């Protein structure tokens, strides 16, 4: 795709007095992409989105939509639309008037508005509700009306500010799939911000993980999950066991370490070029750890040992095992295998566990800080 990207940010920054909310963030979003910005609350993602929408002016940097700088364009003239966190549907208008609001501002004539409103409502699966009040809709339906209200204006970029946050869990799962479908149907560029990693992982083509005003990593869901490039991403996206360790020796990307609790580990350098003697953070995903009652099966994996079952957190398919390593006393979170072999596992049982060095990612620790 050599086309001009729908949205491009060039070294965009925003300061509030002394506080730097967004620090020189650059990225571009090609046409038709579902782009997510994932980060904990207070990481600057909302500020970034509000700058794109035009509600806040960047301190420095440039913002381009379809190749044109929009820094001087007020929010009501920008070719972007936004779905607000609490949707911000106008309670004083019926559904049709809500969806037709933007068209009315453009001075489109009444019969055209009516047709276009009906067409877009049908596309989101809500035909024939135009005359009903907003309050008569369910949470998921309101969501779709909010999207229809933006999409009827055919914006270049649709911004979504954690719109699923207010919904209950079941509906949220459902809306994730629906949002993704709507996006591919309208083929509009979506910029979606969320603190919920599963929302970002399920829906996005591209995800940027944001922390303290900068993008830690930008990539596809798979890249973020399997090859997190920083310790923050490794800890924030997906579950992970985290150890603090000191590097004993380095051989290419192969790293030999000893944890603070005295356990020897082998892992791979996550691309930060760790050196002998460095203090590092080591991340292992709970589902990467294999469990066995037979020491011979896990012994040759490279890392591992024997552990005592301290607790079983039963949660159906996502059940977890909390294991206390018998030699180092380190605590491990392990995903419970669902094959039935460990169904009778009880608290206090001793099992062996192990994982491959390739599944062990090593990051230089930031300022010697340990623990999440």
């Amino acid at each position, binding site marked *: 795709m050599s086309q001009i990207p729908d949205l491009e940010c060039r070294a965009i920054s925003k300061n509030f007095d002394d506080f730097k909310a967004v620090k020189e963030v650059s990225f571009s979003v090609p046409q038709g992409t579902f782009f997510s910005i994932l980060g904990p609350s207070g990481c600057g993602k909302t500020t970034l989105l509000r700058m794109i929408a035009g*509600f806040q002016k960047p301190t420095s940097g440039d913002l381009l939509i379809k190749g044109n700088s929009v820094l001087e364009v007020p929010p009501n003239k920008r070719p972007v639309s936004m779905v607000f966190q609490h949707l911000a549907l*106008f309670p004083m208008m019926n559904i049709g008037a809500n969806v037709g609001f933007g068209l009315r501002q*453009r001075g489109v004539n009444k019969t055209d508005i009516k047709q276009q409103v009906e067409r877009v409502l049908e596309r989101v699966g809500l035909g024939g509700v135009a005359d009903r009040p907003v309050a008569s809709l369910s949470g998921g339906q309101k969501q779709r009306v909010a999207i229809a209200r933006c999409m009827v204006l055919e914006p270049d970029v649709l911004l979504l500010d954690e719109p699923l946050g207010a919904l209950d869990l079941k509906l949220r799962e459902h809306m994730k799939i629906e949002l993704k479908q709507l996006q591919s149907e309208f083929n509009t560029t979506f910029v979606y911000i969320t603190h919920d990693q599963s929302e970002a992982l399920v829906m996005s083509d591209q995800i940027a993980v944001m922390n303290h005003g900068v993008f830690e990593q930008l990539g596809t869901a798979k890249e973020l999950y399997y090859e997190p490039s920083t310790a923050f991403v490794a800890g924030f996206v997906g579950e992970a066991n985290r150890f603090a360790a000191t590097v004993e020796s380095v051989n290419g990307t192969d790293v030999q370490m000893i944890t603070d609790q005295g356990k020897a580990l082998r892992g791979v350098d996550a691309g930060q070029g760790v050196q002998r003697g460095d203090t590092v953070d080591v991340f292992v995903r709970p589902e990467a750890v294999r469990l066995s009652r037979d020491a011979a099966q896990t012994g040759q994996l490279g890392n591992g040992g024997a552990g005592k079952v301290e607790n079983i957190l039963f949660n159906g398919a996502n059940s977890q095992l909390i294991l206390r390593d018998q030699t180092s006393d380190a605590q491990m979170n392990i995903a419970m295998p669902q094959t039935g072999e460990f169904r009778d596992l009880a608290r206090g049982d001793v099992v062996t566990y192990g994982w491959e060095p390739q599944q062990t990612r090593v990051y230089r620790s930031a300022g010697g800080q340990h623990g999440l």
Partner: protein
Amino acid sequence: MAGNLSKRGYTAARGGSMVSDKSKLTFWLLMAPLLIWLVTLIILPHVGMFLVSLREKVGVREYETSFANYQVFFNEPLYWNTFARTAYMSVTATALTLLIGFPIAYYIAKLTRGRTKTTLFLMCLIPFWVSELVRTFGWMILLRETGVFSNVLQYLGLVSGPVEMLYNDAAIMTGLVYTSMLFMVVPLVTTLDSLDDSLIEAGYDLGASSFAILREIVIPHAMPGIVSGCIVVFMLSLGNYLTPILLGGKDSLWFTGLIYSQFITRFNWELGSAFGFLLLGLSSLIVFVGLKLSGQSLTKTMGQA
């Protein structure tokens, strides 16, 4: 077993009725001050006044029941001209108060936070720490011939002699708007406060101009506050006695002034009562029309304020 059950049911029912008796008693006790107030101070005097207004004096201590007092009102142009003028001036004062109060309320509710908000709100309240009489005298000191404004204008050389700014309609209007500002600002701030900022942002985001947002989002949302503020301000202006008399002087021609002179100067309680009832009818009518025009209901607007 069955007997046991029914006995338990019986005690439960008894217990329930005792609770409801008690809560009924509490209800009436709590209502009592309000009811006493309404009956003795509002309903009884009005019934009395209505009966007085229907008496026609035919001789010394001889009265007949008739509508003669009301007839007097309609036959004397001065009376109904004053009546119409009072209504018209009160409506204008209400509209002016709304026009000035709305931006103030919007600023307080939407553009300020925390301490500034409280301070501004208190500043609206400060004039009410002194009595209405003192406040009105304040305006007289400013506006009279030898007053502050007149002197400043002369000092600046803009006028050659002293200027009298009191005793005209503009002075009355100024006084009325000033006196009722708080009663407009408070309900407006309350309703505007409850308007979610993201609705305004959503409006901009969808391409609306500031004016379109005001017209389509802010005003419809604030309508209950606007109407309740207008009702209060209108009634206060219509029933105001001090401000029109002091700032308007002899020619103020305010209907409450007429009522006062009938009762106090002329000892014509019959006509005064009739005037009182006409004023009550007028304010009810205008409030009713206002509610109908704005599509609001009294319960909704008063609940908001």
